[in-house]
């Protein structure tokens, strides 16, 4: 066991933190969100310069050769600063799909473009009727000569409105809830038949509903093995959960720190409200939950590359429950302890609260994953 960062990790951590401290103050972030696309192209280029966009990819594709712990570190920092750029969508979700399922040609073409910031990906798997069920896919892909035709719709595709290329799951066989018969396709966003309606999420990040209507693709668009994508979908989802969990921890940490500041400076009845023992203990409870959440985010990071699929799924579920519940507790109480100001759009604490809320409702909420764990009791 070793909880120390390597020298490389320390350097990376420092430079990310410095960049965000310089360029991601709350007001700067507000500006990024207000821009037409809802995030900062300039910051995106900075991330590329720092090598963040190549973090988890092998060096042969221009990547950094890092692992889940590196992603965890970056996501925690992103969580603290409420970063809104399409890092999770492109590098973690889309990138993992390519990394796990891509053939040499696909990796060679796509990964370097991710690394240099010129290509953004969207993970177009979820559908409106599916909620959290990974196998609930109604979008179909039917053979069309050598190629394929896609028909269907994808829902809440993170940063789907700005993605240059979508990784789309579709049924090439099987029935609605079958694990078998799922296939992934690489779909350039400008392919005829792809229509997108972008919107802001509750936390200010962007997403899109995507409709696919007679979308014609060539044979090279298939990512991985036809009919056998479920395992990849699961792994991409797990990588997403692990990364988002770390981001959630960063958000909780920052919300807790802001709350401590507020308790120290807000004066009522002639003294700082933080002199109230009840609020001190609440802040202590929050500290405990931040640390428990951090432990669980570490567990998730550690498990992303676990080979035993059952063990991996079980631990990711545990982490999702743990981080989810702790994060709700920490951010709800951050708002509560701030009082009225915590309820306002112009104050950061409510944004942490909502970021964490989006995490909770991505890829299964705490109750969903607790149910999966409960199924295994005995």
């Amino acid at each position, binding site marked *: 066991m070793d909880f120390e960062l390597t020298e490389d990790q320390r350097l990376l951590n420092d430079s990310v933190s410095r960049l965000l401290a310089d360029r991601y103050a709350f007001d700067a972030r507000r500006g990024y969100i207000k821009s037409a696309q809802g995030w900062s192209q300039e910051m995106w280029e900075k991330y590329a310069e720092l090598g963040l966009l190549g973090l988890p990819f092998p060096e042969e594709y221009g990547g950094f050769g890092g692992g889940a712990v590196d992603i965890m570190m970056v996501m925690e920092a992103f969580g603290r600063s409420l970063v809104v750029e399409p890092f999770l969508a492109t590098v973690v979700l889309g990138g993992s799909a390519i990394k796990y399922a891509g053939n040499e040609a696909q990796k060679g073409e796509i990964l370097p473009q991710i690394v240099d910031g010129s290509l953004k990906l969207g993970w177009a798997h979820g559908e409106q009727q599916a909620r*959290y069920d990974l196998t609930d896919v109604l979008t179909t892909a039917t053979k069309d000569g050598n190629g394929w035709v896609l028909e269907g719709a994808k829902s809440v595709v993170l940063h789907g409105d700005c993605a240059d290329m979508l990784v789309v799951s579709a049924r090439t066989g099987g029935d609605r809830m079958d694990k078998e018969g799922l296939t992934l396709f690489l779909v350039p966003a400008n392919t005829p038949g792809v229509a997108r309606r972008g*919107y802001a999420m509750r936390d200010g990040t962007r*997403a899109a509903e995507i409709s696919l209507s007679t979308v014609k693709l060539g044979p090279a668009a298939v990512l991985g093995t036809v009919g056998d994508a479920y395992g990849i979908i699961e792994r991409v989802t797990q990588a997403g959960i692990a990364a988002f969990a770390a981001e959630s921890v960063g958000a909780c940490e920052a919300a807790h720190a802001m709350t401590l500041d507020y308790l120290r400076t807000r004066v009522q009845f002639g003294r700082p409200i933080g002199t109230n023992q*009840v609020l001190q203990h609440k802040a202590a409870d929050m500290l405990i939950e931040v640390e428990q959440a951090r432990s669980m985010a570490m567990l998730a990071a550690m498990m992303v590359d676990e080979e035993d699929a059952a063990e991996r799924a079980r631990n990711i579920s545990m982490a999702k429950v743990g981080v989810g519940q702790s994060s709700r507790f920490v951010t709800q109480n951050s708002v*509560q302890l701030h009082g009225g100001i915590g309820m306002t759009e112009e104050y950061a604490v409510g944004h942490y609260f909502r970021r964490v*809320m989006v995490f909770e409702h*991505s890829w299964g909420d705490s109750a969903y994953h*607790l*149910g999966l764990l409960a199924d295994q009791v005995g």
Partner: protein
Amino acid sequence: MDLRFTEEEVAFRKEVRDFIRQNLPARTRERLRLGYSPTKQDIVDWQRILNKKGWATYKWPKAYGGTDWSPTQRMIFQEENQINHAPEVNGFNITMIGPVIIQFGTPEQKAHILPRAANLEDWWCQGFSEPGSGSDLASLKTAAKRVGDDYIVNGQKIWTSTAHHADWCFALVRTDPNARKPQEGISFLLIDMKTPGITVRPIISIDNSHHLNEVFFDDVKVPVANRVYEENKGWDVAKFLLGNERTGIARLGKSMERINYAQELARDVRQNGKPLIEDAGFRQRVAKLQVQAKALELTQLRVVAKAAGNSDGKPDPFSSVLKIKGTELLQDTAELVMDIAGPLAMPDWAKELDLLNRESGDNEPLIGPEWAGYAAPPYLMLRAASIYGGTNEIQKNILNKAILRL
């Protein structure tokens, strides 16, 4: 001791329910059922319907157009409004300024203000909180200087709910900066929101809605005739107002309605390939909330029954129990509804598509199921429920001071 409702009470409940079902505009009903806040027009329309029936001012004394209902009847009336998706009457008008004017107003104030408040001709707002004063209300600083027959008001109020809708504001201002105690030297003024020098600045809430405002007063002239009660005795008025019957504070009908709504939704949403309503964890969660609602219902009945036998007008410290448990339940039931929608609750579709104003004839198709688009805002907004009206922490201080005495 007989804990059942009397036949008269049961009949009263039916009368109220039937009236609401027959008279509540369908669009209002649907909006509230979906979880959205009522629009200003929803509230105005409904209050005028109730006022015509003589029910808008149900909390006022009969002599002033009220109903003489028992506390139990009032509770039933509130509950039925909530369960049947009716907006609540404008509390500033009905629960606050009305009773204040009845208690402290001059005959002229009574004659002019009460009927207009009852029929929502005037929309009132409350100017109490200030940036420096939260739970410590008496530390307020907005100054009113007497100049001839006017006060000249300068200062700032904050968290002023619906100030942007309001025609009038009742405000606490400092008329004697040299008083010995902060509670002394405060006066209670009625301020016409159209007076020059008033600026209303929106505060956007975390659900992206506009309920709250900052209100700036810059040399605002308020006639002395618009003062209620004596100069420098405004704290007495405020205490009366804040101590008013608070049994409706739990908003239990709303929570009950949400629990029912959640079960309805969960029949159509799937988890692990079957309806969510069949999921064991979900069922346990709903059952827990039902038990909590039942316990609160009984406790509320007990507090209401006590109020019925006790007309000393003092606030019952047990209303703090209702506030704490009621707001927790409101928060938990809103969270339940949001959790059912899951990922579909996360997009801010309302903002993008201006769903709020769809009534004005927008024909663009919805981007997702309408109910899911309304699922998150109540969850977000109700975080304030344990903050406003005295935080739940303050409520426990009250319980300690009034009952435990530790």
